[in-house]
Structure formats: structure tokens, C-alpha cells
């Protein structure tokens, strides 16, 4: 356990190391969330509700989406691809720690470095737009439930990032992989559009997929759309997916590590 804590802390430090890098990463996602914000703002022009969401609810949902999207850095993909390309993966493989554990610790280290300030920025934005009405949580239970779901979502997303980063064993182009992974998770988890805006059947299916746990579940709990047993079941589904994706990552890793010898010249 100490080893993993050390890895997480190393990652935290290296995330802090380049301060330009660091501030810009946050700005980048802020640019995107602003784009969405303005787009929906324009979309709500002259409408009171879309798919049952008021403008205030949509705004709140998007804010939670921004938060969840930024708690996990994409840099772990970059880091893995880099180490595979330069052959460092062999060194990593020699360390007496579990590879997946190490990568997840790194992701959590970045969460501390990147996610916490993202949280602060989010709060600042929330406060700034509070006058135009970002909604408070619908109750104390909802607030706690949303926090639990969001925390679980961090692990879930890290696991997804890890699994997709393993694809770097088969390609040298992590930029493309990272982008399409981001596009996929962001769209299907609800970070760009509330899942309720999809056609009803599609939305129902999407809520069964692993991605929904990242944004949609915490956001709906927060807004009071998921309460009681439904909320509990949604969090259970999220937990189940987390375990499943972690396990899938292990299987993929075993397949991928067989590739190392081939790439490792």
C-alpha cells in the first residue's frame, strides 16, 4: 500500500511540476464547458424546458458533468503511451508493484492535483453564475448520494482510462486514442448533453452502460430525479461496472503485456 501511495504522490508532484501545463489543462476543459453552456443557453432561448429539463437544471447538470470530466486527467494515457514507446515499460514491469494498481494510483494522484483545483474552479463558476440560478442539491441525502456516486465515478473513469490506454500497446498514436476515448465517455456519460435529451429508448440503454455512472447518476441524484431505491440501485450498478471494468483492464493488460516484447526493441 505504501508503494501505491508513493506512486500517487510522485504523480501529484509531477502534475504540479509544470505550472503552465497545469493551469492550461484546466482552462482547456473550461473552454469546452463554456461552449456547451452558451450553446444550451442559446438553445433555451424562448423555451422553458427541453426534455423535461429547465434551463437551471440543465446548467446544474452540465456543471456536474464538467466536474466529473475533469476529476480524472487524460495525462495517464499520455504517460503510458510514452513509456511504452521509449521502452520504459520494461522498467515499470520490473517494479515490485501491480501494474494496474500503479497506474490507478497515478490517476488518483492526478485527481488530487488536477481534480481538486477543478473543484475549486467549478465552485467559483457556480458562485459566479449562481445569480442566474445553479440549483442547490435537492436535499442532504441527495448531496451525500451525489458525492458518493461522483467519488465512485472517479474510480470508474480511471479504470476506463486505464483500459483504453492499454490500446497504446498496439498503436503509437495515443493522441487519437485519447481523443476518441474522451469523445466517447463525454458523450455517453452525459457530460455534453444530459442523457435525458437522447431519444427515450437510447437514454434507457445508455443508463445501463458503464459511462452513465460518471456524470448522469451523480447529476440526477443531485437534482433529486433519482431518489430512494432507484438512487441506491443506480449506485450499485455503477459499483458493479467499476469492478467489471477494473477486471476487464486486468484481462486486457495480460494480453497487452504479451505485446511488450514485440514493441520493446
Amino acid at each position, binding site marked *: 500500500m505504501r508503494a501505491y501511495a508513493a506512486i500517487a*504522490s510522485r504523480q*501529484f*508532484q509531477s502534475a*504540479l*511540476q509544470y*505550472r503552465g501545463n*497545469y493551469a492550461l489543462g484546466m482552462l482547456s476543459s473550461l473552454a469546452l464547458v463554456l461552449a456547451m453552456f452558451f450553446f444550451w443557453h442559446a438553445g433555451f432561448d424562448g423555451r422553458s424546458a427541453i426534455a423535461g429539463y429547465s434551463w437551471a437544471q440543465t446548467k446544474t447538470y452540465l456543471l456536474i458533468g464538467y466536474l466529473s470530466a475533469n476529476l480524472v486527467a487524460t495525462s495517464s494515457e499520455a504517460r503510458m503511451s510514452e513509456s511504452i514507446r521509449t521502452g520504459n515499460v520494461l522498467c515499470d514491469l520490473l517494479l515490485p508493484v501491480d501494474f494496474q494498481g500503479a497506474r490507478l494510483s497515478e490517476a488518483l494522484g492526478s485527481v488530487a492535483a488536477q481534480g481538486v483545483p477543478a473543484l475549486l474552479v467549478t465552485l467559483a463558476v457556480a458562485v459566479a453564475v449562481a445569480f442566474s440560478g445553479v440549483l442547490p442539491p435537492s436535499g442532504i441525502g441527495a448531496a451525500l448520494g451525489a458525492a458518493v456516486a461522483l467519488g465512485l465515478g472517479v474510480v470508474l473513469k480511471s479504470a476506463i482510462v486505464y483500459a483504453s490506454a492499454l490500446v497504446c500497446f498496439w498503436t503509437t498514436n495515443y493522441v487519437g486514442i485519447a481523443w476518441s476515448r474522451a469523445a466517447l465517455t463525454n458523450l455517453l456519460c452525459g457530460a455534453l448533453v444530459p442523457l435525458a435529451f437522447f431519444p427515450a429508448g437510447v437514454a434507457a440503454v445508455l443508463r445501463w452502460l458503464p459511462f452513465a455512472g460518471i456524470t448522469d447518476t451523480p447529476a440526477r441524484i443531485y437534482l433529486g430525479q433519482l431518489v430512494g431505491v432507484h438512487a441506491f440501485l443506480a449506485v450499485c450498478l455503477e459499483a458493479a461496472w467499476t469492478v467489471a471494468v477494473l477486471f476487464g483492464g486486468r484481462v486486457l493488460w495480460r494480453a497487452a503485456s504479451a505485446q511488450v516484447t514485440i514493441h520493446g*526493441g
Partner: protein
Amino acid sequence: MAAIEARALCKAYRRPLRAPGLSGSVRHLLRPRHQDIVAVDHLDLSIEAGEAVCYVGPNGAGKSTTIKLLTGILRPTAGTVRVLGRDPHRQRVANARDIAATFGNRSQLNWDLPLGESLALLRDIYAVPQGRYRQHLRTCADILGIDAFLSAPVRQLSLGQRVRADLAAALVHDPKILYLDEPTVGLDIAVKERLRAFLRQLHRERGLTIPLTTHDLADIEDVCDRLVIIDQARLLYDGTLRQVRDRFARERVLRFVVRQPDRADPAGILAGCGPVRAAWEGDTLVVAFDRLAVESPAVTARVLRAMDVVDFHLADAGIADVVRRVYERRLDLAEEGGQP
């Protein structure tokens, strides 16, 4: 005008100063501080066309930095460099046509391409006529044996093959100056020999100017006629190899293994040879002396006459020894330069 001329050449790197650990990282984030690292300090160097100069010094002495300054990769912090009459950094492209460089620990070739394609691309970059290119390939095949791996991607080459490939690539355009940064590092003895033979030939037959850095002192004796020693960014010594050898590498050691040694003081036997130091090491008599002041046959004859010698062995202090003593600060070449 010398082929390479450096005057008061300086290079300082800027390095971020960061205390270790988490708090250090955070503090650096808030207030970054830098430290200047002087890698080359007021270097004066002049290399004539056709010279092979060996550049030695401990790790971090500033050898690679000097090479990068001379090749135009880096811009000097202060001072001037002239290579074939040009400023190699300002007139980078023009300078690049006339020089070549290899860095032992890192390939100049494209990792993904087969060696043959890389060479052909270089041929076109330097606009080398087809006939000369074919001839170059033949020479490289004969001496370096690169024909065996022309079609392999560079990433698949062994270190020895890669270094040979790098050398072949560096010479495609028939440069006037060839800079070599640790050309033999990590190679096995056979490849080293092959490489040195090739360098000797380039130097003697084509008159190529070769500044090279190395830690393998055999490179010096095999290839170079001039030795430059630097340490901690400063020049310690600059002179011909023969000078160094005759001034500082004069000690010769003879070792005689004797049957049933009496271990008596050998001074009596050796009287009349000149100034020698003699001592017993077990059943071996060790005699050390200045090879220019004392004649070895005289010493040998006396010992053989007086004792029952079963075996004997002769060793000269080489350049390696001198350089080691300089590194260890036991010898100051510049100060002792005046004495015989």
C-alpha cells in the same frame, strides 16, 4: 586560418532549482528559480585542418556541450566559434553541409526506416552524385560491413551495428570535419578495433579533421595526434600526444619472477644503471625507472646475470595513466609543462 577556432567560448545552461519533495514542487510552482550551470568556461581552442584531436575529461566536464557548440546545435552564451570561417550557429545550414557528427549514445538515424533508405535520403539531402554515393556504400560495406543490415529498420540493429550505421550515415556527404562524441562507448572489442581502423584510415588517407571525445583511452593512442583535457568546464591541457607521452608517461616497469629469491637489497646489482627504484613483491623483483634516462637492456642484463629468472614482464605507463593522474589532481600538466 584554422579549421576550427574557438575564442573565450562559454556555455551556461539554465536549470530549474527545485527543493525535493512535495513542498519543493509547490514552492517551485509558485516561485520558479533557476540556476546557471556553466558547462564550458572560456575555452580557447584551435584545430587545424587534418588534425585528429582527442577530447577527454570526466563525466560532466563539458565535452558534449563543446561538440554541440562547434557543430552549431547550441548557441554560445559568450565567446565566438568559427568553423571553416563560418559561425556554425548563425550559418547553420551552410555549416551543416561541410560537417558531420555522431553522438555515441544516440542515433542520428531515423528509428523507423531501414538503414538503406535513411542513407538514400541523406544522399538526396546533401545532393551527393550517384557515383560517389555508390562508392561510399562500397567502402562502408568493405570496412564497416554495413551491407549485412542495410535493409533492417534502425530500431532492430544491435548497438555495434547501429554505431557503424551512424558512421556510414555521417560520411555520406564526404564532410570536411567529423565530430565524434564517445564513438566507442559500449562496443565490444572487435567492433571498437574495426571502428578505430576506419577512423585512422579516414584521418590518414582522406585528411579528415576529427575532433573526438572519449573515455576509452585506447581511442586516443590509436586515432589521435593531439590531446585536450578538460575538467569542470575548463581546459586543463592542450598538446600533442607525443609531448604528453615523453613528458609524463616515461615510467617503465620491469618485473622479474625469480626462482628461490634471496630478497636481498637489489641496489647493489643495479648500481651503475642510473636512477632506478627496485623492490621485492613476493618472489618478483620490480624495477621502475624513467625509460629515457635508463636503458632497459642494461637493467635486464644485470638482473639476469645475478639471479635465476624464470619469467619477466615489461610495462610502460600509457596515456591512460597520465590522464588518470590528471583527473585525480595528482598531476598538473600545465605546471609541470616546462620541466623535462
